């Protein structure tokens, strides 16, 4: 029972990690919280889902579409709601509002285009399950966990070892310094926003598979979970986002498993508040 729930928690949590990585990447290079992140990737995921349900496309195409559409929305977000404010050198609160505006537009757009109701994600991988000792894992969960973990490992390597990854880290640490070293920081920012949004696009599809459904309003609820993970992990910390996403997932699943299903979010967020009381900078954050 314990191991079983742990695996379930890790599966859900790995998708939260992917969402939180998106927030933390953008916060890293821009110093702002992108309030439209959730809506961006749910929009992308809906486009992917519709390709499957209405046009009988394979699930792989849906993933690809979700990645591309989320990435493009991220690009539009950068050029309409972020860059113009950056050029004017306004306080960071302004872009908080402009991204909320973008989020609202996307959410209303989704209602118009896809309707406000939940839409079922077809069960592509069947209900086949594997027995691993005392733990029973659904094929779909294995795929979700596998994709999320592989993505995080690749991202970790990419950020730490490649030239572009290092440019992102340099820009995150100090944009001005990065630019005098010859880094085109605007390009780095565009790359980061698109990368963060596309990662969200994958997370959105994986969440759809976990819950067998997607709802436009999930943009907001999942966005908040990602934000909670961001704060818990320490704003700007990629390992923090990865590990704390898993922690939130596990806490949630255990709360449900041990009988408090209607208190799921309350327990999860309550624990986060407790942790933050002890470590205000987040588990992996640096003291300001």
């Amino acid at each position, binding site marked *: 029972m314990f191991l079983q729930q742990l695996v379930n928690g890790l599966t859900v949590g790995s998708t939260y990690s992917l969402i939180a990585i998106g927030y933390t990447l953008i916060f890293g290079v821009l110093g702002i919280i992108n309030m439209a992140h959730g809506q961006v990737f749910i929009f992308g995921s809906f486009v992917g889902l519709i390709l499957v349900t209405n046009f009988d496309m394979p699930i792989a195409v849906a993933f690809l579409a979700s990645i591309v559409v989320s990435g493009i929305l991220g690009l539009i977000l950068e050029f309409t709601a972020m860059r113009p404010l950056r050029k004017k050198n306004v306080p960071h609160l302004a872009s908080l509002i402009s991204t909320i505006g973008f989020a609202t537009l996307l959410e209303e757009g989704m209602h118009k285009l896809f309707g406000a109701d939940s839409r079922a994600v077809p069960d592509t991988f069947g209900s086949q399950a594997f027995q691993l000792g005392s733990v029973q894992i659904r094929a779909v969960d294995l795929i979700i966990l596998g994709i999320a973990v592989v993505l995080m490992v690749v991202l970790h390597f990419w950020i730490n070892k490649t030239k572009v990854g*290092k440019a992102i880290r340099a820009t995150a640490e100090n944009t001005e310094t990065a630019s005098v070293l010859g880094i085109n920081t605007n390009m780095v920012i565009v790359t980061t926003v698109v990368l963060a949004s596309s990662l969200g696009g994958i997370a959105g599809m994986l969440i759809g598979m976990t819950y067998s459904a997607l709802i436009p309003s999930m943009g907001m609820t999942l966005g908040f979970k990602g934000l909670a993970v961001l704060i818990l992990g320490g704003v700007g910390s990629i390992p923090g986002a990865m590990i704390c996403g898993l922690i939130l997932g596990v806490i949630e699943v255990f709360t449900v498993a041990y009988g408090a299903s209607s208190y799921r979010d309350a327990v999860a967020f309550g624990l986060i508040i407790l942790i933050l009381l002890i470590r205000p900078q987040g588990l992996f954050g640096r003291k300001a």
Partner: protein
Amino acid sequence: MLSIRDLSTSYGQIKAIRNLSLDVEEGKIVALIGANGAGKTTTMKTIAGLLTPDQGSITFLGQRVEGWKPHKLVSAGLSLVPEGRAILGQMTVLENLEMGAFQRNDQAGIKEDMEKMMNWFPILRERLTQLGGTMSGGQQQMLAIARALMSRPKLLLLDEPSMGLAPIVVSDIFRVIKQINQEGTTVLIVEQNVKQALKIADYGYVLEAGQIVYQGTGESLLTDEKVKEAYLGGRKHE
């Protein structure tokens, strides 16, 4: 190599430099000296593309470059060591050096230059895998200079390299700057440490309240009565 005419830059409403003109000839060390708040850093930031001037021209290697983005200026051959060194503290010494060579793709050449820098500054070799932020001020300044040289600049801009360093380290840094210049890099240096800067400079400009008030060869400024009185602690020390 670098020619500035009637340059003015403001921070918001405040004009930090006014109608500033100066020239840096190829192969020389030129010093821009002045007190705190005279506009030295503003001048450097404007040349490096971090600030956009209100008016005036900056000509670098025959091209008008005012208003260019910093990364474009780096590819044109200009490299700034910012005030306060600006080491990437969360990245290793090696990564800092790599970032200095960001625009280059000649792996063999980068490796060769990296080796050269580690011979010039042996401390960097010892600290290669250490985070930049864990080094002392003097070591960080050496890393900042080495990092700036990794782009193989034709003109090196140094913004107060002696700031906050112990006197013995300051002498080291100035010796290195002289050596860099002898190896063929033109240098424009901004300093509050007037004596040291003018000693190594071929030519100097004195900046007061955003304007150039004196100029001349390093030697002539060092012996100039007015400069001595204002920046070198008067006559009695001579």
